[in-house]
């Protein structure tokens, strides 16, 4: 029997490569500060977005102006009072008081029931409530409106249960996939994108430029190590760390914020690996154009983080951007990844619905890798 032998040279190539990766891990684990950023940042960001920067409201003071004072308005008022979101601070009687309660800053919103509310509802199947909010804080105002809508709808549904012709209080619904308006659900995909982007791109570009600064890159270049071995060796540890980061983020959102992941975890994992590789390719590209760690960091922060925050749809909806920015947003890999993440995590869809986005991301990755391999020099100039 003949045992197939691995050629000797392949063995030594592998040893070289493993030696390189081992060294990279030494760097990572000995630099306490970076290590802290690496793992502290995801946790801090998720918690920050989850708890502090939130769109949820609690016990918002509101005032009621009830021109009707019938059974229906009373039921609605009771429903609102019973929710934990609002507390009714004042009952006012005149339209003129609306301005003054706002001016005194006593309430954030006033509900104005029209005259003969119940009668109108029965007669015309339609009645109107005016929701006036203090829009000095537009975010909160918007949220309050949404919450009140939700309560009214709920009430409407109950009404319509035993009546054949629907009574309509407020038309149209706006909340589909996040009926509780949990803001953390919206932030998790965005934060995950930022973290993976930063960790992968910034850390790789910094670690490559550090070798340039130290002068060790010169020795590596003069050694028999091939350029792609240097690049892959630099990248492998960060793929590993980024995957851990992605897992930590998903775990945090599931266990601390009770966010359900509707779709396949495996698909989520694979898509994340794809995006990590995109980011690493970007990191290598950055390192080829910067000579110092400082430049690499600035380019990573300004060139990657800002577009991700501003143009990826993470915070500002792309559909409400001016046309030129909407077009630009298409070249930002993060945009596609956020779409994919939302689709998998919130909608629970499979590959058949996100193959297009995946393909775009894959194309970008191949492009960046090709470009950085082309730009990576085996010489100093």
């Amino acid at each position, binding site marked *: 029997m003949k045992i197939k032998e691995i050629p000797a040279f392949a063995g030594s190539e592998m040893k070289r490569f493993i030696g390189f990766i081992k060294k990279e891990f030494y760097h990572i684990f000995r630099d306490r500060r970076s290590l802290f950023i690496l793992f502290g940042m995801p946790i801090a960001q998720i918690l920050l977005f989850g708890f502090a920067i939130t769109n949820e409201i609690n016990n918002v003071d509101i005032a009621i102006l009830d021109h009707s004072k019938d059974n229906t308005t009373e039921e609605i008022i009771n429903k609102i009072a019973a929710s934990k979101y609002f507390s009714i601070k004042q009952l006012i009687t005149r339209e003129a008081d609306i301005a003054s309660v706002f001016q005194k800053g006593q309430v954030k919103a006033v509900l104005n029931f029209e005259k003969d509310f119940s009668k109108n509802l029965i007669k015309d199947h339609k009645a109107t409530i005016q929701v006036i909010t203090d829009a000095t804080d537009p975010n909160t105002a918007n949220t309050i409106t949404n919450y009140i809508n939700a309560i009214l709808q709920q009430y409407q549904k109950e009404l319509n249960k035993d009546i054949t012709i629907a009574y309509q209080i407020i038309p149209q619904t706006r909340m589909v996939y996040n009926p509780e308006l949990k803001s953390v659900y919206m932030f998790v995909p965005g934060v995950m994108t930022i973290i993976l982007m930063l960790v992968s791109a910034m850390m790789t570009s910094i670690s490559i430029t550090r070798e340039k600064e*130290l002068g060790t890159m010169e020795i*590596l270049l003069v050694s028999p190590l091939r350029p792609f071995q240097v690049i892959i060796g630099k990248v492998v540890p960060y793929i590993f760390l980024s995957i851990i980061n992605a897992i930590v983020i998903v775990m945090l959102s599931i266990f601390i914020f009770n966010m359900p992941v509707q779709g396949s975890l495996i698909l989520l994992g694979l898509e994340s690996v794809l995006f990590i590789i995109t980011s690493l390719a970007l990191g290598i590209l950055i390192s080829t154009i910067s000579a110092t760690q400082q430049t690499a960091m600035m380019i990573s922060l300004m060139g990657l983080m800002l577009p991700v925050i501003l143009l990826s749809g993470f915070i500002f909806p792309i559909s409400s951007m001016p046309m030129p920015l909407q077009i630009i947003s298409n070249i930002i890999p993060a945009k596609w990844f956020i779409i994919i993440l939302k689709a998998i995590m919130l909608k629970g869809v499979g590959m058949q619905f996100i193959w297009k986005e995946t393909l775009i991301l894959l194309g970008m990755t191949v492009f960046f890798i090709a470009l950085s391999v082309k730009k990576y020099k085996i010489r100093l100039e």
Partner: protein
Amino acid sequence: MGISISNISKSYKNVKTLHDISFDVKPNELFGLIGPDGAGKTTLFRILTTLLFPDEGTATVAGFDVVGDYKEIRKNVGYMPGRFSLYQDLTVEENLNFFATIFGTTIDENYDLIKDIYVQIEPFKDRRAGKLSGGMKQKLALSCALIHKPKVLFLDEPTTGVDPVSRKEFWEMLKRLQQKGITILVSTPYMDEAALCDRVALIQDGNIMEIDTPEAIVKHYPKPIYNVRAHNMYQLITSLKDYEFNHSVYPFGEFVHYTDSRTDFKPMELQHYLESKNLKNIEIHETDATIEDTFMELAK
């Protein structure tokens, strides 16, 4: 198996850093490239170690062309760049191990080559390289450059920023490496180190001014040189510079090195002149030229 350089020129950002450089380093020679910062030493080293392309000219290292056979060269040379390029956050042993691995060898395999040097830092093998003194960093960097048994060793300013004791030890190590058959090209801004090389090239502003043994270079100095001293250095220098027959006036430690433009110069005449300038405790006597005197004469 030495180094052969012919007509190498190189420009960087429209400034010519090397002008038509040619010289050979014989196999097993300890060759010094002597010149100040900015003379083009590092550029030449980078061309020879295949890190830069020459604009013009060709060069071979250990028989391989620096452009065409760069892969072969990268296997056969050891290179120690200007700043001791070590991983500061790795220990002494980890650094050495790493460089052994990427060159496809182990510390044990070539231990006898680095033994002399490495035993001096071995007691600190678990210390991070960033915490070593300049002299120890230098020894570690040299060990790393030698770990794959290179045929040719390039040392770019290995003694800069290192104290005199370490400098002396370092040159002793180079002599021993030479005996083991390694060709060594070393650059330095310190003129006094030239005497320790077999042959040297004096380089300034990208031009080679002279190539020879250190003894021959000194012997070729064209004029007698005089050590002059007096009670006030500044007055002495200004007076000598005002002297109509002066050829060169350079402070040189506690003396001024003076050469005269005349062939029939008599020190007594200078003595009288200096006395007329109110200088006291005047001493004038002939001395030997140094590499530095030659360098300045050539660069003038």
